[in-house]
C-alpha cells in the first residue's frame, strides 16, 4: 500500500513549532502546548520502558514455581514499582498529556490551552514527582503494592513508602492542573461555530476525563497525607490499635483509584472514536450517544469504587449496591462498543496501522469489559478477586484498551506531530505483534485466576500445576516487549528519514488536519470558522473534490 499524498520537499521548510526556535531552553521554557506534549512524550516513554523492564523481571521470576531469580523482597518491590510507574507516570498522563495536550487546542481551533504556563508547570510537577520516584526506586524502593493498603503501609513496611507517596502526591497535582486546563479550554476557547455538538468525540472524552482528574485526584492526595500523618505522627486514622479503621483507607483509596481507571481508558476511547470514522470514511454512528456515554462513564465511575472491596469486610448490603452500580457503568461502555461496530457498517474501510490498533482495541477492550461482568458478580468476585483473574482483567482494559488506543493515536497523528510519515509496513507488523503478544501474555492469566492463583505471589512451589500457564504468559510478554520496542525504533527513525507528510495524509476530518504538518506555533494561519459537523466524511469524499488515492 502506498502512503497517500507525499508532498514536495520544499513545503517542509516552512516555519513550524519544531523549527521556530532551537536550543534546550526553547524546550524547557516553552509554553507551546505542542512542545509540552513532546516533553511529555519523551518523559512518559522513559517511564514506560522502566515499568516495562520491571514487568519483564516479574514474568521471568514466574517462569519457574520456585522463587529463584530475585529475593522475595525484591519481587515485592518489582510489582509495586511496576504498578506505581505504569499507572501514575505512564497511563494517567499518556493520552491526555501527550495527544490531549497536542490536539485539544487544535481540534477546537484555539491557539493554545487556556493557561499555557500552568501547562508547563504541570509538566514540571510531573518531572519533580518522577524524579522523586526514580530516587526512591534507586535507593531501595517500596514494597507495599501500588494500592499501599494500611496498616501494612502505615506501620509495617520498612521501605520508602513516604517518599513514593510524595512522588505520587506531586504527580497528582500535575494531573489536576492538566484537567483544569482542558476544562477551561474546552469551555472558553472553541473557534466560532465549534458548538458542543460539533466537537470531535476525542474532545468529549477528554472533557469527561478532565472532570475525573479534577474531582478524583485530590482524594488520593488527601489519602496519602493521612497515611503519612499516621505513619509519622501516629494519629489514629486507619490503624485499629489507635482507634482507626483500615477499611476507611480502602474506601478513600478506591474513591480515586477506580475513577482513575476511567482517566486511563476514556481518552483511549476518544482516540478510537477518531480513527474508526476516518478509516471507514463515515460519520460516527450515534454521535450524541457516544458523547454522552463518556459523561455517563465519568459520573457513574465515581459511584462504583467499593466493588474492589467485596471480601474486605464490608456490609453485604453495601456489596449489593456497588455490584448493581458496576453493572450500570457497564452499559455506557457497551453503547460505545456497539456504536463503533455500527460505524463500520457500509463504510469504506482501510487497514492502515492506526486502524489495526483500533481493531485491536475493540477486541481487547471487549474481552476486558466482558470479564468485568464476571468481577462485578458478587458470588464470582469472592472467588476471583485478588487472583490473576483480576490481573488479567485490568491489563486487558489498561494495556489492551488504553495502550492500544495510545499507540493507535500516536501513529494516526504522527504525521501531524512530526511532519513525517512512519513506515507503514513496520507499523502494521508491530500492531500485529502487540496484539498477539498481549493475548498470549494475559489470556492464560484468566485461567490461572479461576484456578485460584493469588496475585503478588513470588513463589508458587506449593502449586506447580500453575507453571504451564505461567510459562505461556512469560513467552507472551517477551513477544509483547518486541512489539513495544518496534514503534519506538521506527518512529525515531522516521523523524530523520521518514518521507515528509502532507497537511492531511489520511484525508481526515477535524481542524487539526486543516493546518500544516507540523503546525505553526500558533496552530492556524488564520482563525478557523467552523460551519460543518464533526466527521463530515461525506463532504471530504464528495465527487467534485474526489482525489481518492488508489488503493493497492
Amino acid at each position, binding site marked *: 500500500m502506498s502512503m497517500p499524498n507525499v508532498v514536495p520537499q520544499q513545503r517542509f521548510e516552512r516555519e513550524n513549532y519544531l523549527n521556530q526556535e532551537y536550543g534546550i531552553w526553547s524546550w524547557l521554557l516553552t509554553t507551546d502546548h505542542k512542545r509540552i506534549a513532546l516533553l511529555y512524550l519523551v518523559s512518559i516513554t522513559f517511564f514506560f520502558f522502566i515499568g516495562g523492564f520491571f514487568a519483564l523481571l516479574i514474568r521471568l521470576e514466574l517462569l519457574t514455581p520456585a522463587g529463584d531469580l530475585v529475593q*522475595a523482597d525484591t519481587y*515485592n518491590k518489582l510489582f509495586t514499582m511496576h504498578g506505581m510507574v505504569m499507572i501514575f507516570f505512564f497511563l494517567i498522563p499518556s493520552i491526555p498529556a501527550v495527544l490531549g495536550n497536542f490536539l485539544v487546542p487544535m481540534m477546537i481551533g484555539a491557539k493554545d490551552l487556556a493557561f499555557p504556563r500552568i501547562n508547563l508547570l504541570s509538566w514540571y510537577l510531573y518531572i519533580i514527582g518522577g524524579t522523586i520516584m526514580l530516587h526512591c526506586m534507586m535507593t531501595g524502593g517500596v514494597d507495599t503494592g501500588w*494500592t499501599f*493498603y494500611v*496498616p*501494612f503501609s502505615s506501620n*509495617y513496611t520498612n521501605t520508602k513508602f513516604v517518599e513514593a507517596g510524595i512522588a505520587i502526591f506531586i504527580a497528582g497535582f500535575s494531573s489536576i492542573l492538566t484537567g483544569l486546563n482542558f476544562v477551561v479550554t474546552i469551555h472558553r476557547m472553541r473557534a466560532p461555530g465549534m458548538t458542543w455538538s460539533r466537537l470531535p468525540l476525542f474532545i468529549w472524552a477528554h472533557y469527561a476525563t478532565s472532570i475525573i482528574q479534577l474531582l478524583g485526584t485530590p482524594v488520593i492526595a488527601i489519602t496519602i497525607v493521612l497515611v503519612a500523618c499516621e505513619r509519622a505522627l501516629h494519629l489514629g486514622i486507619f490503624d*485499629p*490499635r489507635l482507634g482507626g479503621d*483500615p477499611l476507611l483507607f480502602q474506601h478513600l483509596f478506591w474513591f480515586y483509584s477506580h475513577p482513575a481507571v476511567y482517566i486511563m481508558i476514556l481518552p483511549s476511547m476518544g482516540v478510537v472514536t477518531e480513527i474508526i470514522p476516518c478509516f*471507514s*470514511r*463515515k*460519520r460516527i454512528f*450515534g454521535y450524541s*450517544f457516544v458523547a454522552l456515554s463518556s459523561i455517563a462513564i465519568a459520573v457513574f465511575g465515581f459511584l462504583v469504587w467499593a466493588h474492589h472491596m467485596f471480601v474486605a*469486610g464490608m456490609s*453485604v448490603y453495601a456489596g449489593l449496591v456497588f*455490584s448493581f452500580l458496576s*453493572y450500570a457503568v457497564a*452499559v455506557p461502555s*457497551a*453503547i460505545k462498543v*456497539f456504536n463503533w*461496530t*455500527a460505524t*463500520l*457498517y*457500509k463504510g469504506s474501510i482501510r487497514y492502515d496501522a492506526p486502524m489495526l490498533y483500533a481493531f485491536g482495541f*475493540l*477486541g481487547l477492550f*471487549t474481552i476486558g469489559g466482558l*470479564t468485568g*461482568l*464476571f468481577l*462485578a*458478580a*458478587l*458470588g*464470582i*468476585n*469472592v*472467588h476471583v*478477586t*485478588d*487472583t490473576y483473574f483480576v490481573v488479567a482483567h485490568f491489563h486487558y482494559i489498561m494495556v489492551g484498551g488504553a495502550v492500544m488506543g495510545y499507540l493507535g493515536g500516536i501513529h494516526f497523528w504522527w504525521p501531524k506531530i512530526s511532519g513525517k510519515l512512519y513506515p507503514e509496513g513496520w507499523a502494521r507488523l508491530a500492531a500485529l505483534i502487540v496484539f498477539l503478544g498481549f493475548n498470549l501474555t494475559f489470556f492464560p492469566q484468566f485461567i490461572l485466576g*479461576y*484456578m*485460584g492463583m*493469588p496475585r*503478588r505471589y*513470588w*513463589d508458587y512451589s*506449593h*502449586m*506447580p*500445576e500453575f507453571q*504451564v500457564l505461567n510459562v505461556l504468559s512469560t513467552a507472551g510478554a517477551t513477544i509483547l516487549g518486541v512489539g513495544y520496542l518496534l514503534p519506538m525504533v521506527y518512529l525515531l527513525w522516521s523523524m530523520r528519514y521518514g518521507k515528509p507528510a502532507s497537511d492531511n495524509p489520511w484525508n481526515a476530518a477535524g481542524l487539526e488536519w486543516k493546518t500544516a504538518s507540523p503546525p505553526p506555533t500558533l496552530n492556524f494561519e488564520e482563525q478557523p470558522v467552523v460551519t460543518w459537523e464533526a466527521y463530515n466524511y*461525506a463532504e471530504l469524499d464528495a465527487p467534485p473534490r474526489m482525489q481518492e488515492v*488508489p488503493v493497492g
Partner: protein
Amino acid sequence: MLNNFPLWPEQASTMAHRVDALYIFLLIVAGLMALLVCTLIIYFAARYRRRPGIRAEQIEGSNALEITWSVIPFLVFMVIFAWGAVVYFKERTPPADATEVYVVAKQWMWKVEHAEGQREINELHVPVGRDVKLIMTSQDVIHSFFIPAFRIKQDVLPGRYTVEWFHATKPGTYHLFCAEYCGTQHSGMVGSIVVLEPAQYEAWINGGPNGPLSATGEKIFAELGCSTCHRSDVQGRGPNLEGVFGKPVQLEDGRTVTADENYLRECILDPGSKRVKGFQPIMPTFQGLVNEEQVNALVAYIKSISTLKSAPSSRTTARAASASDANEQAATHTNRSQVQQ
C-alpha cells in the same frame, strides 16, 4: 510439567457448585456477546473493505438501535447481578449451627484453634459434610483466607472479626492461600485444608492433648479477675454474661446492638466505646494484656455460657496452652529460617 496441567479448579464444597454454575452461565453469555461483536467487526471489515469507486454510505445513527443495545445488555446484566447477589448472600450468611473454628492470622502464618481445643498452624482439619464457620482476626496487617477448591475468600483484619463458612463435600487436601498482599513472605503464607471423613475427623479432633477452647477461656476469665465484676450469682459491678451472646444489648448512649463476637471483642479491648446501660465506666481496657488467641478463648467461653447445649468443661488446659505456644514458636522459627535461605 505437562502431565500436571489442570484447567479447572477442584470442586470440594457446596459453594463451589453454586459459583461454578454462575461462572459457566457467564462464560456462555460473555462468549456469545464477544462472538457477536467480533463476528460483526470481522464481517464488516471484510465486506466493506475499501474498493475503488464505492463510497461509504453515511448513516447518522438510530435511536431504536441505541435503545435496543442499551436495554438488552442492561436486562442481561440484571440477571447476572441478581444471581451473583443470591450466591453472595449464601456465602456471607453462615448457618446458625455451624462448627466454629477460630483463625488468627499473622505475618506469615495461619493459627487455627478448634472449639474442642485442637490447635494447628497452616493447616485446618475439617469434617466432610458439615457446616464449618471460621471466626477470623489478624494480629498485624490485613490478610485474606482463600480456599480455591471451596470458592471462598474473606479478608482477615486486625482489630475485628470477619467470618466465612463452608460445607466441604469431598475428602482430600486442598490449597489454603493468603490472598491479600501482606509483606515479604506473602507467597509463603500458604497451607492446607484437610477434609476428613466424619469418623477420621472425630478421631483427629479428640486425639490432641488440649481441652476445649471455652475451658481455656474460663481459666483466663478467672485469672484476669473478670469474675469479680461479671458474676453469675448476684448482680456485680459488671453485667452478668450468662445468656448474653446473640441477644440485643441496650447501651448507655441509647443504641441497641447485638452481642455478637465483634461486640464481645470490642468490650474486652475497648470497654468504654459501647458500655451497657446502667453500668459505670469502670472496666479497664485489656488491649495489650491479652493476645488474639486469649481474646478468642474468652469469646468462646462467653458464648459457651450463653448456649444451653454446651456447658463449660472444667478440664484444665494450662498444659495445652503452653504446648501450643511452643508449637507456634517452632513454626515461626522454621518460617524465619526459610526466609533466610
